[in-house]
């Protein structure tokens, strides 16, 4: 080890980032101690100070370590800290710090927001941040943030937000390209206007009745959970769209023409039919469609889907390569007249993979016919997976249906698989 040049020792030690390892290396030898100031990243795990009983408090220990590092770029602190501590740390590292990740853990600390300045406010000192990730945040008052000019990525996991506070936070991050909010409560209505946003993932807890308005012309990837009203007008770049609502009903969607859309996922207990049919209409270029909506209906009553014409559906989605048919969609494709309009020359050109979930033996003949049609017209079909769930097997028709499916599989062994 002695024969290694200083630069290499520094480079080796710069790969360490766990604060425990770094602290230990400080004690190994003088040379190692002197090589540690060149660390780029420092991480304090959750339990860093659990067994600590020394004279310094954790805030001070962190401060002392930060004070030895010349140009820290990334700081991750999962262990508990105070806003006063955070303020002092950022005073040391604010000019070089690019990435900050903190476990705020103050969702339940209502009195914490009376502490002035709050932990959230203190973050403002890190003016050059490029990415910020916060866990367990209470944002009921607008954070006192100046503009984070370089902030590209904002991620909040586990939060209680109030709409005006959240809007204020977004206004301080005009150059975001990535926004992730997971497990967030308290939001009712969100309006996001970020000119550079490309990737957005929103997961709202609660009654599933949030409304979302997104004006982000560069958006490429959007995932939304928990909204009932969604408006995204400029969508020429949108390639990947996922809308889910486990708790509430999706009743209004408003997108432009989704000309670049390659992947669409629609999930939820209940969607208004208008919303479903519009989504299907706009996504005519889609390559992979995942549908798992259980019911439709505009009001409280849960209704099955109306009929979806098989031929019309596949003609209007000519690029479809992969189709996951769960929920009520399969039954809709299996209505009496669905296969009435099969013209000669009808094909499903691009379809390669189908996953179908079959739940009941009702309308078995039509269902078999639909499955057979998929095989017949899907010239490029490589795999068909039939998932059979929870069929009440007391009825003889169930057994007959199952036999039929097995026969289908037997005759198309290379393609069909049952799960």
């Amino acid at each position, binding site marked *: *080890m*002695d*024969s*290694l*040049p200083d630069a*290499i020792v520094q*480079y*080796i*030690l710069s*790969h*360490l980032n*766990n604060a*425990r*390892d770094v*602290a*230990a*290396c*400080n*004690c*190994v*030898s*003088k*040379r*190692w*101690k002197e090589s540690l100031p060149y660390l780029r990243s420092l991480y304090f795990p959750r339990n*860093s*100070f659990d*067994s*600590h009983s*020394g004279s*310094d408090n*954790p805030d001070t*220990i962190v401060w*002392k370590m930060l004070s030895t590092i010349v140009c820290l770029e990334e700081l991750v602190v999962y262990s508990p800290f105070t806003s006063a501590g955070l303020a002092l740390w950022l005073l040391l590292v604010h000019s070089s710090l690019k990435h900050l990740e903190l476990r705020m853990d103050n969702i339940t600390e209502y009195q914490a927001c009376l502490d002035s300045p709050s932990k959230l406010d203190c973050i403002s000192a890190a003016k050059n941040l490029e990415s910020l990730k916060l866990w367990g945040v209470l944002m009921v008052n607008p954070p006192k943030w100046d503009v984070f000019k370089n902030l590209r990525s904002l991620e909040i996991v586990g939060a209680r937000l109030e709409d005006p506070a959240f809007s204020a936070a977004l206004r301080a991050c005009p150059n975001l390209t990535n926004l992730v909010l997971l497990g967030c409560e308290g939001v009712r209505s969100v309006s996001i206007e970020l000119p550079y946003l490309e990737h957005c993932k929103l997961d709202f807890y609660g009654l599933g009745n949030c409304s979302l308005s997104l004006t982000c012309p560069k958006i490429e990837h959007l995932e939304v959970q928990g909204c009932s009203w969604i408006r995204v007008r400029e969508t020429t770049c949108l390639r990947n769209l996922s809308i889910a609502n486990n708790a509430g009903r999706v009743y209004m969607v408003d997108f432009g023409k989704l000309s670049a859309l390659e992947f669409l996922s629609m999930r939820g207990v209940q969607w208004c039919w208008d919303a479903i049919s519009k989504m299907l209409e706009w996504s005519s270029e889609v390559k992979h469609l995942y549908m798992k909506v259980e019911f439709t209906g505009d009001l409280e009553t849960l209704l099955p889907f109306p009929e979806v014409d098989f031929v019309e559906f596949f003609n209007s989605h000519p690029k479809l390569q992969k189709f996951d048919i769960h929920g009520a969609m399969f039954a809709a494709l299996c209505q009496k007249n669905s296969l009435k309009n099969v013209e000669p020359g009808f094909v499903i050109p691009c379809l390669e993979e189908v996953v179908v979930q079959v739940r009941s033996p009702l309308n078995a003949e039509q269902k078999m016919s639909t499955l057979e049609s998929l095989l017949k017209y899907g010239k490029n079909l490589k795999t068909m997976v039939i998932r059979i769930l929870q069929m009440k097997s007391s009825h003889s028709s169930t057994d007959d249906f199952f036999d039929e499916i097995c026969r289908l599989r037997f005759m198309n062994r290379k393609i069909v698989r049952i799960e």
Partner: protein
Amino acid sequence: MSSSNNSGKVLKLKSKDNQIFEVEESVAIQSELIKNVVEAGCDIGVIPLLTVHSKTLRNVIEWCQKHVDYVEENDSGSNEEEIKNWESEICEEGNNNGSDDEETKNWESEENNNGSDEEEAKNWESEGNNDGSNKEEVENWEWEENNDGSDEEELENWESKFVDVDKDSLYALLLAADYLSIDSLLERVIKQVADVIKQCRSVEEVRQTFGIKSDFTPEEEEEIREEISWID
């Protein structure tokens, strides 16, 4: 080997203990040091590597060979440096417009084939340094379209095994990689050393593993220990 172009050129490298190693130029110039010597046009017979022992040099050559082969298998158009290396070996005749063409020509010169996929694969198999993993690579290569991920994974696994050696060998590799300026090897060994440090659970263990003696005075040591008492 056909000598219609320079790509089959073989260099002679001499280790510290005076062993001569014959290495294809394409493999040897993974070392920036050797590459500079070649590009400077020095027509010396043997390149002396005064600080590298033969045992280490053998391993280093294996590393370089592996990485050259990996690039070829993956037809890596994005690896500009590799392409440039290939370009510098081919003489002016022939078209230099596509990396595929150039790589094909290199194979041609070495094994007299016409560059079809299967034949390149067979060449791989017929080369001397084969252990079981090569066969796997050939199979991966034939399924190339779908398998970019697993090729990379395979290389990573190979690299991890390569650096899983005792401390002294690791140091030797580190010093050789630094001297010869082989970035890929240097990075991987450094990462390995860092991983070993991370696995040590105390200051003593680190010192023991790396054979380091503390140069702190007892007072200094006590002060530092007090400061880092929280880690226990």
